């Protein structure tokens, strides 16, 4: 009965979770192998004849203003979106778990100070923190974008982990471990962290969807992934002026975002039903 086998089975048992997991699996494969079979997403085919060309056999999703293949760019955008979201969530979940463990385990003044700081940070919506930082800097490299989104995304997770730790510390098995003289490190890593992993995994899965939307929004405003690197949000920005004459440029990346975020949330929901039933 590990978190992993439990979670996987639960996801597969539910129709929503199964559809979501299947779509995500397909998307990862596509993002991984697709670029091998598709045209170069940066290649400008023919600026005169093939700009904003409608979907055809050669270009199933049409081409954009610069005559680039929209399907190639959607697939490459999946690479960027998924990688950025996964790394961002990995960072924010690690930070949130560390802070939550410290606050919950040490308690007292440490806990009070940390949680007041987290309350304050949660009062400023993540988007506004990022707008402030990004507006003050020139074009940010992808790595910095990931660090910024990760650093602004752990506040709620730390609250969650702290609550789990406070609950777990009253449980008999943790008290028994402490009474038996288990080291602090052993209690934290072998008992508290492992048993908080379920809710943490659920929060991380749902967090992936949020980050995909956040990155798309920032890229749409020109603050996220910088052109010419293909990103779904940036492609919607590119498609905005030609939404009437060449809707395919902006429609397909939007559909890709919606389906991907829906799939991660369906998986997150299915996971929650089993791993974190109290919050379902």
């Amino acid at each position, binding site marked *: 009965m590990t978190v992993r086998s439990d979670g996987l089975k639960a996801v597969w048992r539910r*129709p*929503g979770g199964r559809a979501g997991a299947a779509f995500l699996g397909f998307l990862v494969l596509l993002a991984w192998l697709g670029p091998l079979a598709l045209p170069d997403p940066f290649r400008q085919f023919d600026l005169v004849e093939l700009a904003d060309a409608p979907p055809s056999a050669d270009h199933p999703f049409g081409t954009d203003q610069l005559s680039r293949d929209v399907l190639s760019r959607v697939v490459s955008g999946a690479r960027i979106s998924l990688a950025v979201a996964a790394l961002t969530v990995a960072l924010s979940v690690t930070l949130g778990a560390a802070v939550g463990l410290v606050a919950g385990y040490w308690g007292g003044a440490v806990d009070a100070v940390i949680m*007041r*700081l987290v*309350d*304050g*940070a949660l*009062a*400023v*919506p*993540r*988007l*506004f*923190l990022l*707008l*402030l*930082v*990004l*507006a*003050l*800097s*020139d074009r940010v490299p992808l790595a910095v974008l990931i660090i910024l989104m990760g650093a602004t995304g752990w506040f709620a997770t730390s609250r969650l982990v702290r609550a789990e730790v406070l609950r777990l510390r009253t449980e008999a098995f943790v008290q028994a471990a402490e009474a038996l003289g288990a080291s602090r490190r052993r209690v934290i890593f072998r008992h508290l962290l492992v048993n908080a992993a379920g809710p943490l995994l659920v929060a991380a899965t749902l967090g992936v*969807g949020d980050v995909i*939307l956040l990155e*798309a*929004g920032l890229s*749409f*405003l*020109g*603050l996220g992934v910088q052109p010419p690197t293909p990103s779904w*949000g940036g492609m*919607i920005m590119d498609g*905005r002026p030609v*939404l*009437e004459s060449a*809707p395919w440029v*902006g*429609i397909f*990346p*939007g559909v890709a*975002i*919606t*389906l*991907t*975020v*829906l799939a991660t*949330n*369906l998986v997150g*929901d299915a996971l929650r039903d089993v791993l974190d039933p109290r919050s379902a």
Partner: protein
Amino acid sequence: MTRWLLRRALQSVLTLAIALLLLFLVVHALPGDPLAREGDRALTPEQVEQLRRRYGLDRPLPGQLAAFVGGLVRGDLGTSIEYGRPVASLLAERLPATLLLGGTALLLNFSLGIWLGVRQAVRKDSREDRWLTTLSLAGYATPSFWLGLVLANLIGVRWHLLPPAGMRDPLGQAGLWPATTDVLRHLVLPALTLAIVSLAGTMRYQRTAMLEVLRVPYIVTARAKGLSEGRVVWRHAWRNAVFPVLTLFGLWLPILVSGSVFVEAVFAWPGLGSLAVAAVGNRDYPVLMGTSVLVAAVVVLGSLLSDLAYAALDPRVRHG
């Protein structure tokens, strides 16, 4: 009750103070100069230096903090670089449009979300329940700016059913009635966009709250008395299941505020969101800072009011 109130209010003040300190540190202590991008405006180094002095950026950090706090106390949020006007008056000018949009979206969100959530609870585990959950999750997964663009293009530009952008028709008729309907027509698409992307949360909470109430013995009694199903659901169950959902508006505020940034930008709605987006483009950091300060205050106040409303309805909170 008074003590609980006092403690909760003090806590809000502290939270806001920490939020403002965080905003200050983000702008002033992180590497990156708020005026570094002045290069765009083709300024000489002397002019940049002059600007730095004007905005107090040449002072040491504690001095800047003192100036920031002093300004806040006086209601002075600085001067916009782009418009050359006090930020506070810019914000005051834009706030009503955002309140109108956000308020309408919240109203739509609650009325639709509560109605659908109750339907789901009553038909738990049916095909309709599952489809409504999936549809609301799809709405949550849709980027608001994209949904806005698509709706504006289809309904506004192609079918000419509603205006695709702005808040008022510049060629509209004068008079209270035409002016009001004009604003309302402009309001429909942005408010609907915001409501659709934020609906899932309300539906889920209403469904859960309703399921809990439907299990309670007095519902069995009501059914045993032979009351109609509609009366049992709406008069007996829903009345007790709706207040916890309504008090959640504090939770939706950050989502609505962030969503309105994109929706206002897409629909050219003259509120705080489009002001913030323009400020990003202009590197107008006093305006961005002022907007964030206002948003933080709204979020803290919303969560306080939300808690107060909940406590007023549930005595266990204030005595617990």
